[in-house]
Every structure is written in structure tokens, then in C-alpha cells.
């Protein structure tokens, strides 16, 4: 069985994004990382591949993005993926991304596709569902556990106040969230060096137009300064909460 990971590349989560003079996010000199949810999806896929009780024998990365993301892809390869495909495009919205992925998947056989629940840059949370819909295959969202059983899949989801396990046929697209793997796997140093020799296939994109366009970006308002209240003075704290931040009402 082959698992395909839809992987997006996002700015390092510790970086504060600035806007350029014309109001667009300034992406110069931004360190890029694997989208955290995709990294967990990849980790789980690799665990399944290494578990001898499974039939998973190949893990493939699928990414839509420019060549500047190549190094991040290589790092993901160093974690242990077998193959990577990069579709040479800079999509403007989720629809465009999904379109390219679908165009690629329609041309080949696949069993299980994993997508992260959202990407930590635009938080669109749309690509997974779109891809499943456009491919017309079953999909399941907010997945926190995956186990194979013959040609079926056991999928665990967190529900309000509990947990459900579904048995689902393949092919399938699972949108995974935190909990799918405990911690992202660390790429090994040797893996990093070998990854250079592993194949990253680059594919030319088909023509597509985005369905949306960005009108404006805004930064969150700056945080107001922190006001320290002496621990021996609860009265002052209550006073401030009532009159300054107006979050409580005492009298």
C-alpha cells in the first residue's frame, strides 16, 4: 500500500511576518518549515511503513510550490519518505492547490492520502476536503489515529466528549490533526545526506485560475504593555479588571 502525504511548506512558526510597502506579506529571508500537521501525518505514515504488521510499503510526498521549497522537501525526505513530487506552481488559493493535486492524482493509482487539517500560514483548512470532493473519494476529517486492517482502514476521530473508530474502505483521504503521531520525527543526519540523492520529481502545472483573490492583509494590533500588580494588592487588580479592561462588573 502507498500513502501519499499532501505536504505544504510554511514560514517558521516563530517568525513574525511583516507587510511590505504595498501591503503584502514580506516573504524575503523567511525560514521555511514543513507544515506542522503534515509533519505529524508523515511521521504516522512512516510508523505504519516500519511496522511489519502492515502492508504499507511506500510513502510519497506531494507538494505544490516553488523551487525555493526544495530544501524543506529534502528534509522531509530525510525523515524517511521514499519519493517526493513537487508541482511547480505558486498557488493563490486552496482551490488552485487542490486543482493541481487532483490533476496529478487522477493520473495514477493510490490508496491512502493524508492531509493536515490546516496549514499554519493561511489556516485555510480547505485543501483536504476539496481534493476528496474533486476526486470523488470518501474522506474523513479531524482524524487522530490510523491503523490498517487488510485492505481496510481503522480511523479514529475525537468527538465531543468521546472518540469514535470508523472502518473505511480504500482509497480514502484522511484529514489528520494533532494526536495522529506523538511527536514529529527527527530527520537523521545520514538520512539528510542520502536525501540529496533521492528523487524529487518536478512536474509542470496545468492551467488554472484561482477562485478568490486577496483584497487586503492586516497585522494583528500590537499587544498593549503588561501591567504588573503587586501580589499583596488584590484590590488594585479588581479595580483594574472592572474599570480599565472592563471584563468584570462588581457592583
Amino acid at each position, binding site marked *: 500500500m502507498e500513502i501519499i502525504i499532501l505536504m505544504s511548506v510554511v514560514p*517558521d512558526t*516563530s517568525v513574525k511576518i511583516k507587510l511590505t510597502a504595498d501591503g503584502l506579506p514580506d516573504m524575503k529571508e523567511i*525560514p521555511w518549515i514543513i507544515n506542522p500537521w503534515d509533519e505529524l501525518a508523515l511521521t504516522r505514515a512512516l510508523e505504519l511503513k516500519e511496522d511489519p504488521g502492515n502492508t504499507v510499503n511506500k510513502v510519497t510526498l506531494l507538494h505544490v510550490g516553488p523551487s525555493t521549497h526544495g*530544501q524543506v522537501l529534502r*528534509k522531509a525526505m530525510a525523515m524517511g519518505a521514499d519519493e517526493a513530487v513537487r508541482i511547480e506552481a505558486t498557488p493563490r488559493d486552496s482551490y488552485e492547490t487542490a486543482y493541481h493535486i487532483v490533476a496529478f492524482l487522477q493520473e495514477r493509482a493510490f490508496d491512502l492520502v493524508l492531509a493536515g487539517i490546516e496549514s499554519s500560514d493561511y489556516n485555510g483548512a480547505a485543501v483536504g476536503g476539496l481534493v476528496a470532493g474533486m476526486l470523488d473519494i470518501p474522506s474523513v476529517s479531524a482524524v487522530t489515529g490510523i491503523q490498517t486492517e487488510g485492505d481496510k482502514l481503522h480511523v479514529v476521530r475525537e468527538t465531543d466528549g468521546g472518540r469514535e473508530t470508523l472502518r473505511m474502505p480504500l482509497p480514502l483521504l484522511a484529514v489528520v490533526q494533532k494526536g495522529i503521531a506523538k511527536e514529529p520525527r*527527527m530527520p537523521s543526519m545520514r538520512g*539528510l*545526506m542520502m536525501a*540529496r540523492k533521492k528523487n524529487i520529481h518536478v512536474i509542470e502545472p496545468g492551467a488554472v485560475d484561482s477562485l478568490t483573490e486577496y483584497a487586503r492583509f492586516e497585522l494583528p494590533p500590537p499587544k498593549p504593555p503588561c501591567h504588573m500588580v503587586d501580589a499583596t494588592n488584590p484590590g488594585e487588580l479588581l479595580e483594574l479588571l472592572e474599570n480599565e479592561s472592563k471584563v468584570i462588573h462588581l457592583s
Partner: protein
Amino acid sequence: MPNFYTDNPDLKFHMNHPLMKKIVALKERNFADKVKYDYAPVDFEDTMDSYERVLDVVGEICGDIIAPNAEDIDEEGPEVRDNRVKYARGTEINLEAIRKAGLMGITLPRKYGGLNFSIVPYTMVADMVSRADAAFVNIWGLQDCAETIHEFASEKQKDRYLPRFCQGETGSMALTEPDAGSDLQSVQLKATYDKEKDQWYLNGVKRFITNGDGDISLVLARSEEGTKDGRGLSMFIYDNKKYHITKVRRIEHKLGIIGSPTCELVYRNTPAELVGSRRMGLIRYVMSLMNGARLGIAAQSVGIAEAAYREALAFAKEREQFGKPIIHFPAVYEMLSVMKSKLDASRSLLYETARFVDMYKAWFHISKERSLEKEERQEMKKYQQLAEAYTPLAKGLASEICNRIAYDALQIHGGSGFMKDYPIERIYRDARITSIYEGTTQLQVVAAIAGIARGTLLKQIREYEETKVKPELHTYRRMLVSMTEEFEHASGKVHETENKEFIDFHARRLVEMAGNIIMGYLLLLDTNRESRFWKSLEVFVRNARAENRERAEFIMISSINDLGRFKQEEH
């Protein structure tokens, strides 16, 4: 947390030094491994790319795992249970991450499972890990023991021990004893040879041994009965993982690097293997081991200084007094700019030293495989001398600078810096050890003054002087040239007395003067490559010039008769 590699462009800058091309070619023997190992690099660019990728992942591990664990480890510390060391929980987590990533034994050849990394990127890992947690870097850095085994042990021993380092086992170097600290010639731990069993045994006590319960230990012991000096000492490997019989009597309660267990060890008929030849333990092998470890402490010093500077800068921008952020007060911005200039200078000295060591070590290993041509031999000799002169210089100066930066960084925090609420409190405590272990600053000076007496340092200063630089840098070069004249004058005056005590008395002043000139030139050459270092160059040379003038003044008016004035009464 940020990635400690990508958030600090100075690291990449030092990685890309022009000499790396030669270092890599020598280290990789013109890429001969590429046919044998699928992860071996095929050319220079490929090697540098591998270094870069590895450093990037280390930067991530530092930011995401090691740094966030540092505070808890400092709080919890290791403990002794049933004569064994139990690390703090965070230390175990760090080790696990480092092992999984395959970061142990990275400088060893591929046939032992290593990555055949040169010293420069290895030093850079130490730099970053130290910034994240100065206590943890000791446990990781004791893989220096593997280097010494690689250099001097038999083929059989190498085959037996080196792969174990690569698989993640840790080391320890057991030199110090209660009566043998700076003066290792007086080591007493006894090594006796049992002819019948064809086996060496160790008996005695070692003290202050970092990671003393590590898996593979190098031990300095007296193998020649009746001897009293360094020529009666040999080096041994003790396999603590196999025998597990040296007892950790206690671990020290200490000021800083609390996560790093400092052990008192008791050896009772402990089996051990001789390394290399008898009697060469101290004079040859420990010297080499210590030089490697000293470079490691220089890296630790730079990493700690980096952490301290960042804390201070962030605090100074945030904290407001008298209606404005304190960074706007001259007293504060001066401290910060001096810290930054010294941080940049000591890092530049660190990597210059690492490159010299790399060149020398590469030739040393090649010379064991084939005989060297005349020019090759000369080149090896040149870099050996430079490595020997620069290593104590880098360790001595970087550790003192680190302490100074940590002190000022805490000062900038005011009262908050004195509290556990900010990381600077721990960083300040951790900094303190760097100028003590692996030889105190005073002992580094003893080694570095030899480099001055032999002319090695001055010769290198001349080489910097002759390097072509951009016209806008000429003013600073002129300043450095006149500082060099002043230094030669002072050094001449001290050395011409041929009085050992007088030379020792002024040695630190001379070493610091030479160090200031060398670091000044290194910053000049850095600025020549990238204008980013302008500010540090301007601040550093201005300070260095004033510092050197003060020292020169002191030396020029001092005479042998003065020594008595400084002596303390014995009772």
C-alpha cells in the same frame, strides 16, 4: 522557539570561509568515499550542503528541545543512586533526540558509522548546543574522547570502541584527582599490569569528572611504579558499560552547569586497556585530548555569550525607566555594543582556531596513510604550530569574554537579573566554569605565552596585515599596525630580561594584547568579506586599543624589582 542556526547568520558566515574548500578536500581525501557509502558527498558543494542541512536540523533541535528543557534540568539536576548517576529527566530527553538524529560521533570516519565531519561544523554544533544549554553540551561534547582513541589507539581498539560512540554511547575523561588539578604530572591513580591475565587494573580516586558514569572512559594513571612526574603516566580505556564497577561516590553540588554531573570516582581493581605506548599518557595523548576539549570549551563560551547577549538585548528594548526603553541610555547601549563586538570577535577567533585544527588534523591522519611530500609536511607543521598556539588563546580569551558578557547581561537586567525569573540568572552561573575547567585561564596563558615567545602569533599577525582589504578598512588596519608595534615593544622588554618569573608576571597582559590584535584583524577580515561586521569592528578596535595601551603602559614602567611589591606575606 526559533531555529538556532537560521536565526544567527554569523554561523553560516563562518561556515563559508574560503579555507573550507581546502579543509573539505583534505578531510574527504578528494571524495574517495563516494563509491563506498551512499551518504558520502561527491564534491565540495555537496559536502557544504550536507553540513548546512545538518546544522539546520541541529538548530531546530536546540530551539525546540534542548533550550526549552534547560530550566527544568537546572532545577532538577542529576543524582547518585546506588553509586550510579541518574541524569535529570530533560537530559535523558535531549540525549534521546541527539541519538535519534545521529549526532554522536559525527567527526569519525564513515567506516565506524560516523559522518566524517570536519572540526568547523562540529564546533558549530557545540556553539549552538551551548547557547541552548551549557550543561548539556558537556555530555554531548565528551565524544572528544573518541577523537583521541581514533588518533592513538590500536586498530582493534578503534574497531571496538568507535562504532559505539557513533551509536550514541557517551564518554568521560578522568584526569583530575584531589592532589592533581592544574598540575596533572602528580596524578596518583595506580595502574598495575597482571602478566598472567594479560590485563591492566586501576586503583585509586578521581575527582571532578564530568559525566564520570559515561559508557567509555579515558583514564590517566601512573603505570610506572616509583616515578613522580608526567613521564610515568599512561592512558587507559575503561569500558564502564561492560564492567560497570567504578563507583560514583558522590556528585558535586555546584554553582552552575548543574545538569552536567561532576563525579568523584573510586577505582578498585578496575580492568582497563592501555592506549598507545606506556609513559606517553600525559605528554602526548592527554595533551591532544585536552586541546580538543579546550576548543570545545571555547565553543561553549561563545554559545553562552550568544545566549547572554540575546537576553540582554531583548530586555533592554522592553524595559522602560524614566519614560523610555533603557536601551536609549548611553551606559546601556555602550554595554550592549561592547558585548556584541566581543561576541563577534571571540566567535571569529573560535572558527579561525577550528580551521587551523582541521588543517593540522587532516594532514596528521593522511600522514598515517601515506608518507607526505616535503611541502605537505611543511604545511602540516605550520598548522600544527598555529593550532597549538591558537587553542589556548581561544579557550583563555573566549571564556573570559563570556564571563564579562554574562556579567554585563545580568547587569542590564537590574534586580530582575538576580532573580530566577529570567534565564540570565542561570546563564550567568553557567558561564563561570568556562575559565576554570580544561585548564584555568592562568594555565591557558602559560601555554599561549609560548606561542608568543616562539613567534608563531606574531608571524600570523603579519600574515593578516599583508592581506589585501578594501580601502575603507585601511584606517582600522593602521590602528592595528600601531597596536602591533606597541605589543612588540612590550613583549621585547619583558622577554629580553630572560627572567622566568618576570615573564610569567606579565604573561597574561601580553597574551591579552596579542589576542586583541588577532581578534581585531579577524574582525577586519570579516568586515572585508561582509560589511555587516562594521559596527563590531569599530567598537572592538576602539576598545582593544585602549585596553592594550593600559597594559603596555603597565609593562613599560615595570621592572624586575617590582615583583616583591606584589608578593603576599606567607603568614
